[in-house]
């Protein structure tokens, strides 16, 4: 992933994170604010309902008081106070009284608790309501929730008891009430999105049909079971949200208000439901807006960050390109400097660095060139001095021989000319070696079996391994079979291998083991040639491939240079590892294929019968 892409991602991520945090914060706080408002609204409504209950109770109390104070009731009280009063005279009165005063329930109870008349359950007439006579003064007691027995079951009412005390010590009780039912609910004014439900708790277990209200079916009613059971255990106000479907917009928050009787028994539960639809839709709207804003911000961020990253990374990319050019050898590479910021300073430093590197390289090249020339001069002087010295002696002998007789002169002359010829031939050979090195041919690539080439190279030196009078050298070959062919010039490769083997033999004057190993590594073929000689010092290792450098008394210093040249021409690498006193190992990695080269089919590796001329040069 490029720096620009990374920078782009970082900027985008930062923008996204920022927008997300803002959107979340806005949504969260907005939702919290709306929920608080909704809760306040519901609380207000619940309070309003409670107030309305109180008002209803006062209305019922007013009507009950009117009934109790009516002339007919007074006459009834007087009549019923008489011994053997005919109570049947009034058995129907409650029905008319209830209708007249707009009450659902009216019961008239005699001073002894006997029910005289009942609007809601006439069949109960004659039975006693002892709870009524247990209270001395009902007139100050407000409305209370009461369980009402009816012919078809039981119900809950908001009831009031008022008394007629026309006859002393023989109070006539009037019980008036309104039934807590759908009509009661319908009379409540509810704002949009809210509804009221009533559960009449008249059975020990939850009964779905006891839940009354609009748009409530049996399946929905079942969802209130746990809430009702909880209130049955502990009649305290509760708030709970019911998810009708998986859509949160269909959820409703219910405030449950327990309706308890005079003895604190739970008679019913009043539910005020507030739909969360409006709230959820509002939240969704905010989320949509936040998502749109975030998308727009991200798009803007993408464009801006693209522009910013391009602006930031362009000098960096120029620096990277310059560095690559430097790595490619163009040490004089320069890049444009934009501005004076850190990137600009970096570009200036880069230019300064390449300038310095170029100058140092130039000086190094000059130094190495001088050193090479000196080394060459030293080697040439050394090589040339060896034959020149006998030639000088020979010439001086010839000059001295002029004083000898002819026969002796002739003998000396012949010996001197033979020596001169030999030394001239020696000089010619030396010059030829240098000439050959300077004329290294370009490789002609064909498919070459490296193992076979190595075997041929070793086979050439087999006579020397067990040469009489010399220490024995044991060749050991660890050649991987099969080994992929490589694109190589077989003659040059053979020449390189010969030089390496010869170099190893020279390194083991006291005998030892010559180890040759091949293997395949990552599209390359690796060749290792190791000896068990005395090894090299690190300094010797570092200069080992320098032309004309040699550690031997007899040698031109071109053998390993030729090996390096061949390996280099094959786009391979050569390295040396040596432990002083334990031997030296050369490692060559050759690519299996030469890119951009036309390769001829495989040819058998050249099998030289004698060492080539360069080999001789390498043996020094």
């Amino acid at each position, binding site marked *: 992933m490029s720096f620009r892409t990374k920078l782009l991602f970082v900027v985008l991520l930062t923008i996204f994170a920022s927008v997300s945090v803002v959107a979340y914060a806005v949504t969260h706080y907005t939702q919290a604010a709306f929920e608080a408002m909704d809760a306040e609204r519901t609380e207000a409504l619940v309070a309003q309902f409670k107030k309305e209950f109180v008002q209803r109770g006062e209305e019922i109390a007013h009507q009950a008081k009117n009934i109790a104070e009516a002339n007919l009731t007074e006459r009834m009280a007087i009549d019923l106070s008489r011994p053997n009063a005919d109570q049947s*005279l009034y058995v*129907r009165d409650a029905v008319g009284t209830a209708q007249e005063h707009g009450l659902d329930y009216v019961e008239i109870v005699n001073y002894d608790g006997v029910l005289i008349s009942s609007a809601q359950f006439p*069949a109960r*007439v004659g039975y006693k309501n002892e709870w009524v006579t247990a209270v001395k003064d009902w007139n100050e007691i407000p409305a209370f929730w009461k369980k009402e027995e009816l012919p078809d079951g039981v119900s809950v009412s908001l009831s009031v008891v008022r008394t007629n005390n026309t006859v002393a010590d023989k109070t006539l009780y009037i019980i008036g009430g309104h039934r807590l039912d759908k009509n009661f609910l319908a009379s409540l004014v509810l704002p949009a999105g809210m509804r009221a439900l009533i559960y009449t708790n008249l059975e020990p277990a939850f009964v779905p049909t006891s839940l009354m209200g609009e748009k409530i079916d049996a399946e929905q009613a079942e969802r209130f079971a746990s809430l009702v059971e909880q209130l049955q255990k502990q009649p305290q106000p509760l708030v709970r949200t019911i998810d009708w479907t998986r859509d949160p917009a269909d959820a409703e928050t219910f405030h449950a208000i327990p309706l308890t009787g005079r003895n604190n028994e739970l008679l019913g539960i009043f539910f005020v439901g507030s739909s969360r639809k409006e709230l959820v839709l509002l939240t969704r709207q905010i989320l949509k807006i936040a998502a749109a804003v975030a998308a727009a911000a991200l798009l803007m961020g993408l464009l801006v960050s693209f522009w910013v990253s391009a602006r930031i990374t362009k000098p960096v990319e120029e620096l990277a390109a310059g560095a690559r050019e430097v790595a490619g050898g163009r040490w004089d590479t320069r890049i444009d400097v934009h501005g004076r910021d850190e990137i600009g300073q970096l570009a200036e430093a880069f230019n300064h660095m390449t300038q310095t590197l170029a100058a140092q390289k130039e000086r190094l090249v000059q130094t190495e060139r001088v050193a090479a020339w000196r080394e060459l001069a030293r080697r040439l002087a050394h090589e040339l001095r060896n034959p020149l010295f006998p030639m000088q002696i020979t010439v001086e002998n010839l000059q001295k021989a002029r004083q000898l007789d002819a026969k002796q002169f002739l003998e000396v002359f012949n010996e001197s000319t033979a020596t001169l010829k030999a030394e001239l031939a020696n000089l010619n050979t030396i010059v030829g070696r240098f000439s050959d090195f300077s004329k290294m041919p370009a490789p002609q690539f064909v498919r070459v079996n490296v193992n076979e080439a190595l075997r041929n190279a070793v086979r050439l030196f087999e006579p020397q391994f067990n040469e009489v009078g010399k220490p024995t050298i044991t060749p050991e070959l660890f050649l991987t079979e099969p080994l992929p062919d490589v694109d190589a010039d077989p003659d040059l490769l053979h020449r390189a291998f010969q030089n390496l083997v010869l170099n190893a033999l020279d390194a083991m004057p006291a005998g030892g083991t010559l180890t040759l190993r091949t293997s395949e590594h990552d599209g390359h073929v690796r060749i290792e040639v190791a000896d068990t000689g005395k090894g090299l010092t690190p300094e010797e290792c570092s200069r080992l491939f320098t032309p004309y450098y040699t550690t031997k008394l007899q040698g031109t210093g071109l053998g390993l240079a030729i090996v390096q040249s061949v390996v280099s021409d094959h786009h391979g690498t050569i390295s040396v590892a040596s432990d002083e006193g334990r031997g030296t190992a050369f490692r060559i990695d050759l690519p299996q294929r030469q890119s951009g080269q036309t390769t001829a089919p495989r040819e058998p590796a050249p099998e030289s019968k004698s060492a080539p001329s360069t080999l001789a040069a390498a043996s020094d």
Partner: protein
Amino acid sequence: MLGLAILPSAGASKWPHYSGTLRVELRASSVSLDPREWKVGSAEFATDERMGALVFDRLVALDNYGRFQPQLATEWSHDAAFKRWQFILRANAKYSDGTVLSSADVAAAIQPLLPDGQQISASGNNIVIQSAAAMPDLLEELASGHFFVYRAQPDGTLMGTGPFFVAETVSSSHASSNSSSAPADSSLAAPTPGVGKTMHLRFRANEETWSGRPFLDAIDVTLGVPPLRQLFDLQLGKADLVELSPELVRRATQDNQRVWSSAPVTFYGLRFDEAQPSAMDANLREALSLSLDRQTMANVLLQKQAEPASALLPQWLSGYAFLFTMETNIERAKEIRATLPANMAIGAEPLRLRVDAPGDLAKLLGERVAVNARQAAILVQVVNRPVARTTTTSNDPAAGVHLFSWHYSSLSPRVELESMVSTLNFGNSNEAAVSSTDPEQLYAREKKLLQERRVLPLVALPEYVGLGQKVRDWMPSRWGEWHLADVWLDLPESVPAQAGNPSATETPATPTAGASPGAKP
């Protein structure tokens, strides 16, 4: 019990005279004038019988002194074994269309009404009814119930020899704005009873009747009038004769209305049904019986307008009803209940009581039964009969107890008792019906039925009638026959027809020339 209170108004006519239309209002929404269709014991039977008595005659009648009076039969005799009865038909008895009644008509009319085994034959003026079994109470049978003589017309209507005939039927709303006429039919019903639509029946005086033209020119009967409205109409003078429900009797008397009551003619009771197995438990039935407070039902709930019933047949009919008592003992009921299985008649499986009898009164009684039973720890669930539906469906829960009403329609206690047993199916199927009129046998039969407690008497109600101030010579029988042919209206001489009666002014009464009170029997 309230007695008849006749309070002639000041300045009223001293002698009966012909004219006027009697306005009658009835609760029933339909009337059948075909005796073959009348359902014995039902609440509708009384209305049907009263309307039928206007149009048809019986062979014999029973007066308030228990004496048989000749009607279409002038003489009768029987053999020693009471297996053959012979009746002599009244000569020159005519139908309302003027055709003469024949003995064959009588045989054709009576035969479908007779029980199996009794045969009727006609020969000349003689009519013979015979049976393999003794028929000691045949006269009581023929003097009551549906034993009217009629002739079926080709159009399906029935023609009678009675003092009136059906002149027209008018179906209209209370505003009478869309009234329409329809031909007289034997089965007449208000189009939409109880919801503002009523049906008017107009009976016209039969000039050809053998008993002499009735005093009234016509009788207008309005069907489907709610009880309270009937009372209002009576108070406002819009009706001359109305049915009063028991709960309105006290109100009517307090308003100085004329109220007549019959002997108890409607019986309310509980019968047990094996549809709910727990109802067949004798102990549960006994516990329920002991829990019932009939005195309170009659004296408080029904405001003393009913009598606690301890027998199936009333005292006036059987003569031995006073021998039965129905004990109320809550403590004993609780003890018996405690011995019953715990799951019997409790919340999960209460004893279901279906109120088969119509009306709010029956519903109130059913609720009182449930309240009484609860005192004995017996849970009774009252299931009211759906409105406008007389048959149960498979969706109705099986009821173990039924609250029924029974209208006494026969003057023969034997016939009445066996009709009740067979119709309501509460007797032991292995128990043979009583064929004798011997009171001891009847008493034993009824006692055994009551001891089985498959039927529990509750209360017996008289019938109450509210009478307008102008109604004169109201002389009904104790068992509820109205005898409207004897009634006349005390109208001011200057007013030919009653005000507020559109139909009366549209069809003014036209007394028959030459008719005189002397023509009355």
